[in-house]
């Protein structure tokens, strides 16, 4: 992993570290955990191609997909299936890494509004997922809701068509006077920021982007303006030189009584996918010695 692997910070609150590139299930995960332990949300980016072999060889893929396996099977194209499987793997492995538990012990659920959740973990660890083309971006936060969005820098965007849907009147006027290339980039940036924000709220695209106003504070950082609530941090990065990735984080005190694992506790890394030739693939213990979901349990489906 390389913190500077193709990541260029466009705009970020100092609380936000740059997205971390994780090339596969075997990490390394220590930097991811370190960011979470510092009280900040962490972003992990990768491409589904990097994880594909591991996903295909993972004998526990069925368990990792859990209840989303039916959706996986009904995804029409092979590329869509692979992206779906890998995105869920990345989300689950990232959460498992910071919790120091086996990925299969986590049950990925969704609210009726579609927001991903780690079942039973409530407000202790929030997750968000975005993917486009071959890029997968996962946000994980132990300090309040997080939302992420990513778009290709090369995506054609029509200011004329999108202005009224994406921009407030003030934002539209500010963009209208810019040169076309810069205007397109700014518009894309606004789009990713607003989608990241509405995903963190759990509202997604049901919330009209044109009613959400962004501006700059006295230090030049992106902030919500108008009567939107405060306590939000935003950041935008160029990832892998080709994608614009934004993150929104609502600062909230970490839930008392729900600490992240003690850094001094015995470490656990998500097990790398193993094939039949590797007899160690059952070696990872369930946290606390408790029985994990067995093959007959719903979590194993």
């Amino acid at each position, binding site marked *: 992993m390389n913190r500077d692997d193709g990541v260029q910070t466009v705009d970020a609150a100092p609380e936000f570290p740059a997205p971390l590139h994780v090339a596969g299930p075997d990490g390394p995960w220590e930097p991811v955990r370190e960011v979470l332990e510092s009280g900040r949300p962490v972003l992990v980016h990768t491409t589904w191609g990097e994880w594909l072999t591991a996903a295909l060889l993972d004998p526990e893929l069925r368990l990792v997909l859990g209840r989303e396996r039916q959706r996986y099977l009904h995804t029409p194209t092979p590329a869509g299936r692979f992206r779906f499987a890998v995105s869920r793997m990345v989300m689950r492995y990232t959460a498992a890494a910071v919790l120091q538990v086996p990925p299969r012990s986590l*049950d990925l659920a*969704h*609210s*009726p509004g579609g927001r991903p959740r780690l*079942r039973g973990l*409530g407000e202790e660890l929030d997750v968000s997922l975005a993917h486009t083309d071959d890029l997968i971006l996962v946000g994980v936060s132990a300090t309040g809701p997080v939302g992420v969005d990513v778009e290709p820098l090369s995506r054609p965007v029509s200011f004329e068509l999108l202005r009224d849907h994406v921009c407030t009147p003030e934002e539209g006027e500010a963009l209208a006077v810019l040169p076309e290339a810069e205007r397109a980039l700014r518009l894309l940036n606004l789009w990713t920021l607003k989608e990241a924000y509405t995903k963190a*709220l759990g509202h997604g695209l049901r919330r009209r982007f044109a009613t959400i106003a962004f501006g700059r504070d006295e230090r030049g950082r992106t902030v919500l303006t108008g009567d939107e609530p405060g306590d939000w941090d935003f950041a935008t990065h160029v990832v892998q030189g080709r994608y614009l990735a934004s993150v929104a984080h609502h600062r909230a005190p970490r839930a008392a009584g729900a600490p992240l694992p003690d850094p001094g506790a015995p470490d656990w890394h998500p097990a790398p996918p193993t094939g039949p030739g590797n007899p160690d693939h059952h070696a990872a213990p369930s946290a606390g010695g408790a029985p994990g979901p067995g093959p007959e349990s719903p979590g194993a489906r």
Partner: protein
Amino acid sequence: MTLTRPAPVAAPGSPSVPGRPPRAASRAYAELPPTADAAARALRLDALLGDPDDADNPYCRADRGALDDLPVPDGLREEFVPPAAGGHFTSGEELARALRPLFRRDLALGQAWGVRPLLVADDGSGCAPPRAVELAALLAPAALTAVTGGVLREAVRVVDARGRHEPAVRQWHGTLAECFADLLACESLVAVALRSLDASGGTAPALTAAVGYAVPQLVADVRSALDLVLHETGCGPASPQARALARIADDLTPAGLDWVAATVDQARLVRARDTPEDAPPLRAGSAPGHPLFRLGRPLGEGLPASGCAEALAAALPEAAAGIHVAGPPAQVALARTARRLNTELRTLRIPLLRAAHADPADPAVRALADRRALLLLAAAVLGVREAATAVPGAYLGAPDWALLALARATQRLGVPLPPGLTDPRDDVWAVVAHRVRHHVDVDVYATRMLW
């Protein structure tokens, strides 16, 4: 504080006896009426608390630091005192109904006057009803659903009014119908748990734990949806509606309704002994109409606590068996959804037995607790809905709200919905809009409100 609307009187033509309204007035008070005395006391409390829209009313939007200075309405303390000691307390369910006007106003006020007295009384310094601590643990979620229902009514009022002239606003009918169904599901669970406290031989711990764990989470979903609807209909963060919503969020931790409190109940959910396996063998027909589910009616003497576990364990399979019975589309859809959830319940039994002695911090065990809570919620929904079919004209007996609530529980469980289900949201919206127009609360009893 001024009273801008007179207190209700007995139904026209009925004999009027001060302090004791006739039965007809009680029926007019709610579709599932309490005793006439209880209805009169609740109405009196509502009147004493004054008009919630009166800006000068100290009981509305009270400063958190000034709560202790507010006068406690006359008669409120007697609600917690058993009749033998000169009070009115007869059951947890009736107490919750008597306090509902208070709970509707403000979560902090409800906590201060409706929940905390039980904890103080249990310390020996007061006259406590039985199981005061357990009762307090259930009244706090009851207060949460009541105050959230107030914001739902406001959102319905806004959408209903604007939707008459702006078709785009009608897109939120379905979202508000879902909020209504979720709140009815939460209230069903709370009411059943309150009734279980009256069973002899101890409480049903999984049921009470499910209330503490599931209700705040479902209400959080409702609050998020209300925030969205309010924002999209022009009620920004500075509006009274949005401020009321924000105030609920601020009051969660002091009221013991935040996530930290929920984790305590989450651990209890897995360890609770009243698992379906602990219940006596299922007897055909044991769930429908079981006294536990007959909201608003006395539970009856001598019902053992094991009867509660049995009734809950039977509710899903009994409802699933209804798939073979012909009926309107929503009722058939309800049975099909119940069958899906019954399958889920079966898959949970062995993992629950294994998890009883596992580390409650294990995420897999915590996920199991989450699923158990949702299935108990579904069982409560099906139980109260079925029992309410015996009450003529009671909306609680209609299948549409239960279908919507179950569909959302199914989604939360990650279980695929049966294909081709009828969509009940238009029908549920019609009911919630009608209630708001006619000053009827969004509760399980369909209680008429004074204000």
